[in-house]
């Protein structure tokens, strides 16, 4: 019962704040802050699902680090309001709207179905021990590949920034 209340509260908050993020095009910082609220609401949903580690990372990485960087860049660039003038966005809005409608129709049949009962969760589900063990034993290769990808991106960013400076 508590789980249902928390889920509906978080889900409602996520939808409202996501809408607020998209509709606040003129105020970029307010839009970014709505994104933060969305992330926190998503973390709440992960908590209901017993995925504690994902919930903590959702807040630490997405809400705490990535969006702070967004806000940092927005404040540094000091974008003027006309940078997001509506006239430039008609085509984008059209495409986005069509895609949204398509997604709605694609998902609608799923809503009518009853979700199957999930398999019983193993001991320590969603905790750092189980996630860590799985990540470093069964999925160690994808993990290392992702690490190298990020390292490459980081080196690339440094090289590009340095060329600009020189």
């Amino acid at each position, binding site marked *: 019962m508590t789980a249902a209340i928390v889920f509906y509260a978080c889900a409602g908050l996520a939808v409202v704040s996501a809408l607020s993020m998209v509709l606040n095009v003129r*105020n970029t910082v307010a839009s970014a*802050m709505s994104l933060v609220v969305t992330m926190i609401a998503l*973390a709440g949903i992960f908590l209901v699902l017993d995925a*504690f580690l994902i919930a*903590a990372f959702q807040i630490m990485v997405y*809400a705490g680090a990535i969006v702070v960087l967004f806000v*940092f860049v927005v404040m540094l660039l000091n974008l003027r309001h006309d940078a997001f003038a509506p006239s430039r966005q008609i085509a984008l809005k059209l495409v986005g709207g069509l895609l949204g409608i398509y997604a709605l129709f694609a998902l609608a049949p799923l809503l009518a179905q009853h979700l199957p009962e999930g398999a019983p969760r193993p001991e320590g589900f969603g905790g750092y021990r189980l996630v860590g063990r799985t990540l470093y034993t069964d999925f160690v290769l994808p993990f290392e590949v992702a690490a190298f990808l990020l390292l490459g991106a980081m080196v690339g960013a440094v090289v590009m920034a340095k060329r600009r400076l020189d």
Partner: protein
Amino acid sequence: METETIIKTVFILAVVVLAFAPIITWVERKQSAVMQDRIGANRADIAGITILGLLHPLADVLKLIAKEDVVPHGANRFMHLLAPVIAAVPAIIAYAVIPFGGSYQYGDETVNLVVADIDWGVLYIFAIGSIAAYGTVIAGWASNNNWSLLGSLRASAQMISYEVTMGLSLVGILMVFQTLSMFEMGLAQDGTFRLLGFLEAFGWVDDIGWLGALRVPTWGIFLQPLGFVMFLACAMAENKRAPFDCPEAESELVAGYHMEYSGMRFGLFYMSEFIEIVVISGLMAAIFLGGWTIPYLPQETIIGAITPVFGEYFATSICMILHVGLFFLKVIVMIYIQMAMRWSLPRFRYDQIMDLCWKILLPLSIANVLVTGGVMLLIGSLT
């Protein structure tokens, strides 16, 4: 929510928010005065009684509440009013996972002196801490003032950078204690280990003989001394206090991100800074200074020694009071260290702060993780 949780919550809020935070504002003024050869705050009085100036926090709060709450012209009103709340709330709720006492057995009842003993306590602290950055960032942006904006830009860069290092500096201690729960960390620190035992484990000496009597508490500070220093530096930088107070550097930015705040909204920023000091001290005490434990006197020994005199019920209670008292004594020591640093060191330049983070602390913390892992592999266990 059961009664026990409510009692613990009220207790910790009363101690941290209502007792520690106001007294630290007084300590800060008094200590700066002592270190600069002044007398310091001593005028506020009720009917001529001043109690060393301890009434100043009360006078400050009354003054702040009575002041006009100004929102500057052209500022984003909603965000401007929201920012102090975002800054204060994470500081207050962080204490939920910091244990202030151990586990006590009353018949069938077990009393754990921590509000929420969650398995991922350290991650909770980091998640809460990363949200705290928004308070300063939004405050500076919503004030419609260039100095404030510069202050919050510096604050956001500094807080993101030091969050990375703060996390990595704790990885070593997480490896040693094999847990993310702060309560389990406290339990693990209620013991001793042979200081020179590693000589045997490495095979350098066959038997260390009488030197084995040289035992040290299994406190984080003895197991991870480098981690202790790095975590203290990062935590102080996260709190944006001198020597890391670039975001509010008064000689360059007037007052930085909270320049356009007045009345109790400024008071919230001010208070959250002092509550954060208590939170940092509590974290350091719980993780590195053995939490509530008394060195060389494990809980069973204390209770066993007093039980014949007072009976088990009172013996457990006396042990609990000793533990809670010692925990807050450790917190006070850590607060004192932070205060002394704040009034002895000059402010770093912005580039020095960034160099310290990315070029010194980050490589050191990664080296610490590697060395800790290697040593643990060789030694196996502590005792």
